[in-house]
Structures are given as C-alpha cells and as structure tokens.
C-alpha cells in the first residue's frame, strides 16, 4: 500500500483578485517543484484526482445566506471535494494517510456564511469532518491547525462539539488577523477544554513550535486518542511569509508533519509562494510519505532569524496554562454546565474583511438530558453581495431527540411570527440539508 495519497489541485483558474495573495499563481511554483522532484512518480505516493463536493456535503456544515450555492464558485466544490477524496482514500485503506494540497482554503469560514472572510468561503476541513461522520461513522476527531492565523472558522463550527478536539497554534491575535484565538476561548460548556488555543509570540521558529508540540500537543493527542487526526496544514508560519512574522522553516514544518502523523492533511494558508511553498510542501509530502526530507532546504534563508528567548517562555507558559485546562476539563465542564443551566449564549461580531460585511450574531446552545441538544442562531448582516440580510436559524445535531426537535421547530415558528426575519432556516445534519420554512 502506498504511504501517502496526494490530491493536488492548484486551481490555476481561481483567484479572489489578480494581485490578491489568493491568486492563480499561488501553487504554481509548488507544482513546478513537485513535478521537477518527480514526486508524482514515487511508488510511496498514490495520486488522486479531486472530485467535486455536492451542495449537500457543504450543508452538513454551513448555512449560507441567502444560500450556500449562491456564495461559492465551482473551485470551492473542488477544494472541498479534494478533501473528501483524501478522506475516502484513507478510510478505504488504499493509503496510510493523505494530503489534500488544494485551494481555495477554508479555516476562517464559520458555520453561517455571508461571503468570503480571511480568503475562505467554506470550511473544507469541517466539510470533511461531517463527511467522515455521515459516511464512515467516525466519532472522535482531532484537528491540529498549524496555520499562522487562528482558525476562527473551525473554532466556531466545533465550539460545541465534545468529540472534536481543535488545537491551533498561531501568531498571537493581538498582532495578526483575525485577532482571536486565546486560551480562554476553550469551547462552550458542553465541550469545554476541546478547543485549545496556543497564541505564540511573533518570531517563534522551529524550536518553539516543536517545544510546544512535544510538551503539550503530543501528550494531549495521545490522551484524547482520536480515530482520525486532521492537520490544517497552513504554511504561513514560514520565515518568508509576507502576511505574518514567524520563523518556521521547511524543515520545521516537515519534521512536525513526521511527528504529528496526521491521517489527513489539508492545505490552508501560506503566501510566500516562491520562497516557501515549494519547499514546505515538498517537505510535508515527503514526511507524510515516510521518506527522507532532510535535504529539503530553502535556498534563500536571508529572512530567517533565531527566535528570541521570550518565544520559548511563552511556549512554556502555554504548556502550563493550557495543559492545566486540558487536565481539568471534566471538572470545568461540570462547573460550567451547572452554572449555565439549560442554555448558553454568546454574542459575536464578525467582520468579513474581503467584502466589508459586518455580521452580528447571537448563538444559543440549548441543552437536554437525553441528547446533545440543538443550537439557535439569530444573525443580521449589513453590506452583503445581496444587500442587508438576516436569518433565524435552528441547527439539529445528529442525536437531537424528538422533544428537542419539536421545541426547536416551535422556536422557529415563533420567530417567523414576529415578522422580523427574512429567512427562517433549519439545518439537519442527518439529512444534510438546510431548509427554509
């Protein structure tokens, strides 16, 4: 059996705008490097052609307003489909692990979608997670997000899910988009401790991220013991990335991939298209294929600096603080649950940087003794492509019981009666549909 299934889709005909970091050329040099190295000929690697995801696949995760179909391009269906192809390859046992080296990326896309934010419209890892569940019945999943930006979309989608462990290390949100990703954002009461944010100081390099991995991420993963590990394999921690200020090298990324042993990796960000991506991707591919990556070294290392001592201090602090949170998660969860009673609520202001959309959202988790409950979301957004929009949304989980379903529908009907909402939407993951009532 080949070690690695590789789904490569550079989307040479998709861009946000001609000079945007997410433009046609982004994976051109990576393609050239992989071809020139002869990567696609290796017996350790089996190549896969991405398929197109369906709207149903997307609606297991997203509620698009006015509809997800109106907000995406065909490229999104291919990049999400590429993840599904990777998942199938692993689940069918055709390969040991897989890498969806695809674009457009996804980890800034949240459950409710009005447009593009942080270069993302749909969350391709989340679409894959829900697919793994509905097609293969996978329950416990860990996502390790190694992109320099906090994956606020992934956090948003899995915030209430006790079976998805989301771990993200990233450049501190006080110095970088999207400005979130602090340890106190640890999950809603029912899933407290399942969302681990590890904000690093700018300038952190290979030493720091490996110290963090060895000291915290590895032991946490071992204890959680997920059925599947997913790597949101962003590459913008690289020392040459134009959008961020970190000091990770291709070797740092490749050896991390070798240690992490993700079942499925999915490309996220990374915008040093010439100086970093060709080497980082080659390194990750070789590492995942179980091959020698020790010679994959960027020819230009002028922008590489040694990390300062403060970087490791921050790492050690996180290992302590977040490690404690992880250890205490059961107790903390009980405390939080008893404190909030049958409902837990959060208010969010979400800004869509690409399109200037501002969204206000109130999300309520409704708890139940017999099931995991359901969500209701009230959302309004100004300046979308379709003008001002709003919606009242009910989200059923897979196990939402019939009583909860009745209650939720009653809430939706009540909301409809107020006449306040243009859209009343029900998302049912078991049926993979979002229905407007």
């Amino acid at each position, binding site marked *: 059996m080949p070690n690695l299934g590789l789904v*490569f*889709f*550079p*989307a*040479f*005909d*998709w861009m946000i705008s*001609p*000079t945007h970091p997410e*433009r*046609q*050329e982004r994976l*051109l*040099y990576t*393609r*050239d*490097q992989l*071809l*020139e*190295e*002869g*990567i*696609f*000929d290796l017996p350790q690697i089996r*190549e*896969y*052609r*991405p*398929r*197109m995801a369906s709207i149903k696949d997307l609606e297991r995760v997203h509620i698009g307003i006015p509809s997800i179909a109106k907000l995406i*391009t*065909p*490229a999104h269906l*291919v990049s999400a489909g590429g993840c599904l192809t990777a998942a199938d390859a692993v689940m069918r046992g055709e390969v040991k692990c897989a890498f969806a080296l695809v674009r457009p990326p996804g980890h800034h896309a949240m459950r409710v979608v009005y447009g593009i934010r942080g270069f993302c419209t749909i969350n391709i890892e989340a679409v894959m997670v829900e697919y793994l569940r509905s097609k293969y019945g996978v329950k416990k999943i860990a996502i390790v997000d190694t992109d320099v930006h906090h994956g606020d979309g992934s956090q948003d989608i899995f915030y209430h899910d006790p079976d998805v462990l989301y771990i993200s290390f990233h450049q501190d949100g006080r110095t970088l988009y999207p400005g979130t990703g602090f340890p106190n954002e640890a999950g809603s009461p029912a899933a407290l401790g399942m969302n681990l944010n590890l904000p690093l100081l700018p300038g952190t390099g290979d030493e720091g991220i490996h110290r963090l991995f060895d000291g915290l991420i590895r032991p946490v993963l071992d204890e959680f013991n997920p059925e599947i590990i997913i790597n949101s394999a962003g590459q913008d921690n690289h020392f040459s990335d*134009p959008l961020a200020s970190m000091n990770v090298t291709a070797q740092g990324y490749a050896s991390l991939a070798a240690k992490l042993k993700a079942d499925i990796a999915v490309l996220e960000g990374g915008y040093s298209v*010439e100086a970093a991506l*060709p*080497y980082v991707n*080659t390194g990750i591919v*070789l590492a995942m294929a179980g*091959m*020698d*990556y*020790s*010679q*994959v*070294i*960027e*020819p*230009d290392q002028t922008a590489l600096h040694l990390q300062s001592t403060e970087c490791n201090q921050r790492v050690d602090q996180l290992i302590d603080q977040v490690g404690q949170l992880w250890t205490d998660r059961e107790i903390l969860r009980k405390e939080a649950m008893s404190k909030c009673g049958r409902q837990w609520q959060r208010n969010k202001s979400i800004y869509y940087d690409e399109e200037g959309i501002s969204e206000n959202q109130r999300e309520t988790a409704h708890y139940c003794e017999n099931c995991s409950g359901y969500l209701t979301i009230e959302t309004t957004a100004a300046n979308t492509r379709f003008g001002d929009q709003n919606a009242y949304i009910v989200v059923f989980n897979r196990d939402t019981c019939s009583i909860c379903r009745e209650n939720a529908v009653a809430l939706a009907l009540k909301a409809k009666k107020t006449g306040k909402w243009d859209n009343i939407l029900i998302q049912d993951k078991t049926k993979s549909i979002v229905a407007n009532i």
Partner: protein
Amino acid sequence: MLLGIDVGGTFTDAVLIDGDVICSMAKSETTPDILGGILLSLDRLFSAEKLDKEIIDAEKMRITRVVISSTIVTNALVENKIDQVFLAVMAGPGMSTKGQFPVEPYLATGYIDHRGKVITAEAIDYDLVKKMATGKKVAAVSGKFSVRNQINEKALRGDLKKCNFLKIFSGSELSGELNFIRRTNSAYFSAAVYTKYADFIRQIKKSLNEREINAPVHILKADGGTLPLEASLEQPVEAVFTGPAASVLGIEALKPPSVNTISLDVGGTTTDIAFWEKGQPLMSPKGAVLAGFNTAVRAFHMRSLGLGGDSVIIRTKEGFVVGPERAGRAMALGGRAPTLSDAFITLGLVSFGEGRLAREAMKLYARGEETEKQVAHAVVEAAVKKIKRTIDEMVYQWGIQPVYTVNDIIAGNLFKPELLIGVGGAAPGLVKALGDYMHLPVEIPVGAMVANAIGAALAKPTLTATLRADTTENYYIIPEAGIKAKLPHYFNKQVAQELLTAWLQAAANKWQIIAPVAEIVAYEEFATIHDYISSGKIIYLKMQLQPGVLSHVIGREVAF
C-alpha cells in the same frame, strides 16, 4: 513509395506502400545480427513477384523514405548489453536521489531554483570525477531545474570534456519538461545504449546500401513519430519501445477507430494495450518506464502485459494462471506444454494446428468430470480477467492525470471504451473473448499480420520543443535547442509561438523533414506579483509536429 521495416524479437517484417496500396509484404526470422534478417526480408519483398532486376531497380528508385522500427534498444537493455555510464547530477536541495537512478551518480555542486536563478554555480572535484570515470566511454549529465537555465549543465559538460568521453548526453536537451529524475534517466539510458545503437544504425545503412536503397532513413520513436537516423543518434533513448508504437500506428493506418477504443496487439508472449479517443491513440501523461526506471521518453498510453498465445498455463488452488512465462509452441502445433492458444483452439475461437492435440492439452488439467471445453473456458476466463485488470489500472492512470483548473475537473477525464480492436496472431481468440466479457463489439482489421511494418512505413516525422519565458527576469529558454536569450522588446503568446515555430522549422529543415505546421500542445500564462503589484509574466509553451500516419491503407491478407 514508402518502405517500412519492423525488426521484432521473433520476426523482421517489411512492407512497401504506394499511396493507399500495400504493394508487397515480406516476413523473415529476426537474426542475432539484425542485418541478416533485414536483408532477407528485403530480398523477399522485392522478389515476391519474381520481377526482373530492371523493374526491381526502378521500384527501389521510387522509394522516398525508409522507416525502421526496432526493439534493438529494448533488447540491449533487457539483456544488459549496455555500456557503463559516468553519470553526474546536480540535485541540490530537495528529495534524496538515492535509488532513483540506475547507477549511483557523481554529485556535482550546482543548483538552479524553480525560477531559473543560479543559486550555486557548477563545480566538480576533478580528481574524484577522473577516478569514477575510469573505464567509462560515455557520460550523462543532468541538473535539477536545468530546463529553466542550462548554464550549470553546460558548464558540467564542459568540465567533463577533459575526460575524453565518446559522447556526453544532457538531460535538459532530451526533454524540456519538468522532472529531473526522468530527464536524468533519459540521459543515462541514451548514454548506456549509445555505442550499441550507433552500431545498429551502421548495420541498417549498410544493408540498405547493399540492396541499393538510397532513400532517407528514419527511425520510429516511442511517441509514434519518426526521426532521421543521424538525428536519432543524439537521443537513442527515443528509439526504445518502438515495436508497440508501430503497432498502434499500424492500426491507425489500417482502420482508425472513430469511437473510444482499446486496441490489443496479441503476440506470442505479450499483449500490448493502447487507448484511443476520437481516432487518435492517447499519449501517456508521463514518460515511458525503462528497465524499471522512469524516463522522459514520450510514449503512447500503453501497457505491455506478459500474456499471449504461447503463454504457459498453471492451475493453482485459486484457479488458472496464464503467463507471464512463455511455454513455447502450442501443443496443437507440437509443443510440449498447454498454452493459451490450445484453449482457443479447443473452443473453436481460432483454427490452426491439430484440434485433437489442443483438446488433449486441456484434458491434462481436467479434474473429475470436467470436460476439455470447461477447462478451456476457465483458462480463457483467467486470461480475460488478467487483461481486464490491466485495462482498469490504465483507466485509473488516465483518470488521475494532473488537473490544474476547475475547467479540467468539470470536463472530467474518464475513459469509457466502446470498441475493441485486435491485431496480432492470437488476437481473434483473446480479443473476442474479452469483448464478450466486457460486453463490447470487437473488430479484427484485415492486414493486421504486418501492422507494425505498415505503421512504421507510414509514420509522420515529429519534433517537440518547449519555450519558457519569464518577463520579470527578461529571458526565454528553449532547452531542446540549448537556447537562452533576452526577450524581444514586445512579448506575448504570439511572439512566443513565432520564436518556437522558427526553431522547429529550422530543425525540420536541418533534418530534411517536410514539416507540417507545428501545433500547440500546452500553454500556460501566469502573472507574477511582487508586493501586490504585477511584475511580469511567465509563459510556457510547448509545440509539436504531431505524430500520426501520412495516409491510410487498404489492408490485405497474405499467407507467409
């Protein structure tokens, strides 16, 4: 008139074609020295009608081109009759090259990056090179990304001049496409077969001279195109695998399929399988594999499966296994062990040899109450399933070729066969059985017995070249030509096309190829961005004199 000669492992065939008419065909056994077989075939070709010398001489005068297809290079490789090669590579940082090449290479200093920038200049340790090169007559050099900038590869070649090699091959001149390992292996194999190949060419010229045939001589390449003999000396690796290519062209000449088709050339030992779309054989998305190593040799999307009429049959617990070993002649023809052909004869799918002996062959494998026919059915089914597995793998390989755009994905790449075409001695039996199994119609074209020689005779000349321009760095490169030059003041796709066409035309003239218009086979254009500002363009263009056949012929059947 066109003369085609196919030097196969068993037979040397020759055909003479005038327009769409096959004037004469001849077959003789291939001799170890090649020359003998060719001479005998030529003599049979021109004496078939027992014409007098004057008429024969007049016919020979009318021959405008001779094309040879041969397995000679393949055989040299298979039998390991190759020269030791001094291989020097500049791999730079990246994937380890351990085990990727047929020999451990000398690792020279030097690295070019993906944009064609020299990161490290070429340098060698001459004492070490001298030591490693001792006793080696030929050399191959190759550098990573040398198709983007050949300066290091050229320098390395220059440095090796002191070693007095008979010939040095450069990877980037053999293929302008990305894939360092494949280019390196192409250069290596070119060097490894060089002296053997040069000798073969001398033999060909000599035998044609002896028979007073003075027309230009071409060799058939794996991609189905021809190249003048002299030109082919610069790329001997291209002359490998021409047997299967010839059979594909033969089918194209005899009966080009109009629907999606799988063609099967069923010989004694192997079955060559090719795919067709819209009347054209599909080219392999990657290069050919030689002696287990990937090369940059362009070839048809084909598989050679170790299964043919003479394949040995074994019965195991799981059932029958057919091939890949060859049993010798069918028992129906007096052979000693049951073969696949014996099964066909038993089932009445083909008719040669003694039916009684074939049935006895099947009986050897019968268990309990099983009849000969039941055994034969099971044998044929095993053979058919084996072919089907190969076809499925080929469909998969075709389907996963790299896709770079959303449009590619939407267009899809699924190959769905609608017809089977069989050529070769055992085709009627095997391909008909396969057609039943796959629920597909089957055609066996007339004249298929010498399809290879017909294909060779009618093959078009081809040339391929690539151009890559980087307007930010202000240069373009045509690796196959060894050209790197400053861009003209105004540059776009059309100018790129003119530059490349001009070179192809010049090369065609040099080799006296009457060149049709070169076609664009690949084009890419990207804007390069620096600090959110467009800084230039990268243009990649690949053009080719397309392979194919010069004309179609009307097949006829002859008994040899």
